[in-house]
């Protein structure tokens, strides 16, 4: 029925306007950056981080599982898309969906026993962090330390081998908007209510009839699929396939950004990703060259400050501003 479908796709007015507003702002960013190569690349990286954090928000923010394996699912999507393109000439338009499907498969393989045996909190964090390293070693066993390069292929739009960064920027920005939309839809659905209940109290949630394992697995699968898609786009940007894609640090940083943003708040999560990622690059450029590594020091200090001053995350700041505006 078209009526029910359009109802399912629709958002509340306020949210729809925010999302459209965000899309317009994102569309204009390269114009404001004067189509400068370097700045657009930076903006693309910010979009990448924001997309990943927005995907993480489903498992970390809504379901409350401290997942540190964002880079594992992203890298899976990336290497599968990349190798299908480099070895078989398969277009990334299809490859990224195969990559995402494999990421979901791995998520189920890992998630089913994990949730079956009730692994949670710090143990879940350790397990997912180890997953990134294990995936990295597996890739290393197959391909060794060789890096595979994706050649330039024509037509560009089919193989996504563009010579300018703007296209990648727009692809990742679109991805970000889609992931935020998915987040908002989940939040308003039965799944969203159930995930929130699981996050707050698993035992009470189960006693209200929620199959905790199954709903956690749903959250993990959606998150893995989105992270895999992001990886598929990312690999067409860098074009370099290597075991280094399985980066434990990126998994941790993704969770950190989500937490700084305020758990369960998609606006806060995206804002945190945009601010922290831009700041990281700025600090690297400004002081990283003179005093190597010092940008990480400053970055860490800022994280501590946020933790002390705003433990509820940037989301509480957003709520505060919203209330101020409404009151006027």
């Amino acid at each position: 029925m078209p009526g029910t479908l359009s109802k399912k796709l629709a958002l509340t007015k306020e949210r729809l306007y925010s999302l459209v507003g965000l899309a317009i702002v994102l569309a204009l960013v390269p114009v404001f950056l004067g189509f400068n190569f370097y700045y657009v690349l930076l903006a693309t990286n910010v979009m990448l981080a924001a997309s990943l954090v927005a995907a993480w928000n489903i498992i970390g923010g809504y379901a409350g599982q401290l997942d540190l394996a964002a880079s594992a699912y992203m890298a899976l999507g990336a290497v599968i898309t990349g190798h299908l393109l480099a070895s078989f000439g398969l277009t990334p338009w299809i490859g990224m969906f195969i990559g995402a499907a494999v990421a979901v498969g791995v998520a189920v393989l890992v998630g089913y026993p994990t949730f079956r045996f009730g692994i949670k909190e710090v143990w879940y964090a350790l397990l997912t962090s180890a997953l990134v390293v294990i995936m990295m070693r597996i890739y290393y066993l197959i391909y060794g330390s060789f890096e595979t390069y994706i050649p330039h292929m024509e037509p560009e739009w089919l193989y996504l081998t563009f010579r300018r960064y703007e296209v990648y920027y727009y692809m990742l920005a679109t991805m970000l908007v889609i992931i935020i939309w998915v987040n908002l839809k989940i939040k308003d659905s039965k799944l969203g209510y159930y995930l929130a209940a699981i996050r707050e109290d698993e035992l009470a949630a189960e006693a209200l009839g929620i199959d905790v394992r199954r709903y956690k697995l749903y959250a993990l699968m959606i998150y893995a699929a989105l992270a895999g898609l992001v990886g598929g786009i990312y690999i067409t940007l860098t074009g370099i396939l290597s075991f280094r894609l399985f980066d434990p640090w990126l998994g941790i940083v993704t969770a950190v950004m989500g937490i700084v943003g305020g758990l369960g708040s998609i606006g806060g999560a995206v804002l945190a990703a945009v601010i922290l990622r831009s700041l990281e690059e700025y600090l690297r450029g400004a002081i990283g060259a003179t005093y190597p590594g010092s940008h990480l020091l400053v970055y860490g200090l800022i994280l501590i400050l946020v933790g002390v001053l705003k433990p509820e995350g940037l989301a509480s700041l957003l709520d505060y501003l919203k209330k101020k505006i409404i009151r006027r």
Partner: protein
Amino acid sequence: MPEPLLRVEDVVKRFGGIIAVNHMSMEVYENEILGLIGPNGAGKTTLFNCITGVYKPEEGRIIFQNEDITGLPPHVIIQKGIARTWQKVRPFKKLTVLEAVTVGALLRTPDVDEARETAKEILEFIGIEKSRWNRLGSEITLIEHKLVDLARALATRPKLILLDEVAAGLRPHEMDELAKVLLKVREEYKLTLIVVEHVMRFVMGLSERIVVMHEGKKIAEGRPEEVANNPRVVEAYLGTKPL
């Protein structure tokens, strides 16, 4: 005698060497309020957890509406129609009162709007003021927590509710209020209630029948005044007379 709604048959639950529930049997009939009492460590809460699927009993069977539900997981048990509340409140701290009750109502419908309407009806019926509906779980008082916990359970449309020490920590006038709500709720939703309780005034006033547990077994059963004068019950609570 009519067919019981819930039948506990010879249930045994051990934790290592300790036998928490020792060949316990009892029946619960439709639309009654059954008080389950006993001194600390009598196995009341463990029996509750066996019925609601938190623990799997080692021996014995639990029959609900002529169906064996022994060892089923909690989320399946509640679908059959057995809901519970918690001794120590387990609030959804970051959800509002209305959202928490909506979670319960979502068991019977996938539609969030419909579930929210059900939640509103139940909150209104239980008597939580509208101005409190948008409060977070971390912002409400103990009596409100107990009521929300009850509303959450009611929203799943159960036939039987197990109340684990609902009166604990409440002031006397709050207990009276709660007892009134429970009677009202039973009437409206055609419910059966099992009340585990330490506060004698509350459970004796509310229950129509009492089962007394001691050291994992049933030692007495009957109307409140019968049970209160039963020498075995007095002995279990106060110990034997000194010689």
